[in-house]
């Protein structure tokens, strides 16, 4: 028995398009690798910036240094460059003349000697992003000084300093690290969807409006093969290219993140293989949606160029859910899970945050996306059955 007709069409379309440099480049390089490459480059750059903030000499304007000579000496020993304080600390931080100003009030010495908590003031502007690293460093230095002296006082009185430490807190701040970083992470789902759309684009166009333009459509339709089989073969080839592109994208993302040096502030983005596989499975139904919708659009157009224009324009639409999600976080409700593309975006960010996935959620996303994809595919078959196809 010979091959099923759709398989013959699939093999021919795949073989023919593998010989086309543009199709191969978009399916294997441009589509899947563009977003991971941008991500890796940007992350490395952000990491470098944070590192240089941390390593540069900490300059600290101090008002009233004479009230606490020991503290100031200790700070100098920690390589802090002590600068004379401004006349008006509040104005100085508001005008961003200084990132952080330390003010030591006159009562410091008296409190210190009496064993009471001695007050020091830190002036800073919470909305000044770049001051945050400096603030954290100053605060941790001051806390370190306070803890050291406190421990010494207890030791002098014959008490184990560990008694006074009821909690040992280690901070791991993951959220709101850097607005740029947050944006990159938010674009992650779109990067995958882009790869799925871009991977099969040229094949979808080539096998539909390209076929008509090259005058091969009429001879093709003269074969004793149901038109649904022809459409199925072409769709399968587009889906295959799209799947390869999507898989490469996830793999490149997973591998690319291992190349990014760990952020000096302890933040490390990573996509271990298991998570990558989860994300791939979540995104997979998009390939059918992308392929079938591109074929439908390309079928209606008269020429390759026209098809390319419309298909590329259409490709922008899936970015909408991503933008919506950036403006206000979308929850995983039945309504969002039944919306193709948005549901993938929501589920992928859940995986990204390390939340557990419910099978029902994934099933809803899969079901709705595949249903819409099949609707598009059915529309292509309908289109090919019309007399007007030529």
């Amino acid at each position, binding site marked *: 028995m010979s091959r099923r007709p759709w398989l*013959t069409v699939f093999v021919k379309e795949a073989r023919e398009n593998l010989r*086309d440099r543009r199709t191969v480049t978009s399916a294997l390089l441009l589509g899947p690798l563009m977003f991971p490459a941008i991500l890796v480059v940007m992350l490395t750059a952000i990491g470098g910036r944070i590192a240089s903030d941390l390593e540069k000499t900490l300059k600290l304007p101090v008002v009233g240094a004479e009230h606490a000579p020991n503290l100031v000496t200790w700070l100098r020993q920690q390589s802090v460059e002590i600068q004379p304080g401004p006349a008006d600390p509040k104005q100085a931080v508001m005008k961003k003349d200084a990132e952080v100003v330390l003010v030591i009030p006159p009562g410091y010495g008296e409190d210190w000697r009496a064993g009471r908590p001695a007050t020091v003031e830190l002036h800073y502007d919470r909305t000044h992003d770049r001051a945050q690293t400096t603030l954290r460093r100053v605060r941790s230095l001051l806390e370190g000084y306070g803890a050291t002296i406190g421990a010494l006082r207890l030791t002098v009185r014959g008490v184990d300093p560990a008694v006074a430490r009821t909690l040992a807190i280690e901070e791991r701040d993951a959220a709101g690290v850097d607005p740029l970083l947050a944006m990159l992470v938010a674009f992650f789902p779109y990067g995958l969807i882009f790869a799925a759309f871009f991977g099969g684009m040229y094949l979808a166009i080539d096998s539909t409006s390209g076929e008509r333009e090259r005058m091969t459509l009429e001879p*093709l339709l003269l074969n*004793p*093969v149901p038109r649904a089989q022809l459409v199925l073969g072409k769709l399968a080839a587009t889906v295959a290219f799209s799947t390869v592109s999507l898989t490469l994208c996830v793999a490149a993302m997973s591998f690319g993140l291992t190349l990014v040096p760990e952020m000096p502030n302890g933040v490390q983005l990573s996509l271990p293989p298991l998570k990558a596989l989860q994300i791939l499975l979540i995104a997979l139904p998009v390939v059918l949606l992308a392929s079938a919708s591109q074929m439908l659009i390309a079928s209606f157009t008269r020429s390759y160029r026209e098809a390319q224009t419309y298909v590329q324009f259409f490709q922008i639409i899936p970015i909408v859910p991503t933008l919506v999600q950036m403006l206000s976080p979308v929850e995983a409700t039945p309504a969002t899970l039944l919306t193709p593309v948005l549901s993938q975006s929501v589920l992928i960010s859940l995986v990204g945050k390390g939340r557990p996935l419910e099978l029902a959620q994934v099933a809803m996303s899969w079901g709705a996306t595949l249903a819409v994809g099949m609707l598009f595919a059915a529309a292509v078959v309908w289109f090919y059955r019309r007399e007007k196809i030529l």
Partner: protein
Amino acid sequence: MIELESLAKSFGAVRAVQDVSFRAEDGRITGLLGPNGAGKTTTLRMLYTLLRPDRGRIAIDGVDALARPEEARRRLAVLPDSRGLYKRLTARENIEYFGRLHGLDEAALRERTDRLVRELELGDVEHRHAEGFSQGQRVKTAIARALVHAPQNLLLDEPTNGLDVMATRAMRALLRRLRGEGRCIVFSSHIMQEVASLCDVIVVVAHGRVVARGSPDEIRAQAGESNLEDAFVKVIGTGEGLLA
């Protein structure tokens, strides 16, 4: 054998084919002659089941083409007006693709393709990508592709269109050879000389209707003209469009 009865087809208000009936026998070349726009291509497209007639009946070797279009297409080799090739496939791959879609198994496919490559002298382009083929090489490949499943009936829409003298001669020789094998051949043309030199039976079509039918001699007699060209002009009613 191909039989048509009272075919009619309209596109909106345009009545492309109004009433076309004829029968094309095995071992004969039947020519569909008519000026441009007479309804030849529409008639052929209905014959090869790409268009569905509004009315009428088509039988290919006795198979009702309207009821069983796929079965009818298995018995047809068609060289349609659009005869593009897949440019990134070789001539052989182009031929084999259609053979597989016709359901040939690999052994039969290899044997048929080898034979067509030999008969149509496609040896030097067999393994070359179709990009850059000459017009003659393109048409020969398209014919090989149409014949790959060895059907009994051939439909050709203006087969010599755009061919140079040598390629045209080769095409005529091929059609005569296929007639010698007992096949039923129908081709359309607007070139009187071509139809006159090749055809056993001529069907003259004008304004969507058959206006004359028979051997060249019969058509001359029918029109009462001793010159075939004058006879054509007379049955069509005008000389317009017959100039090649």
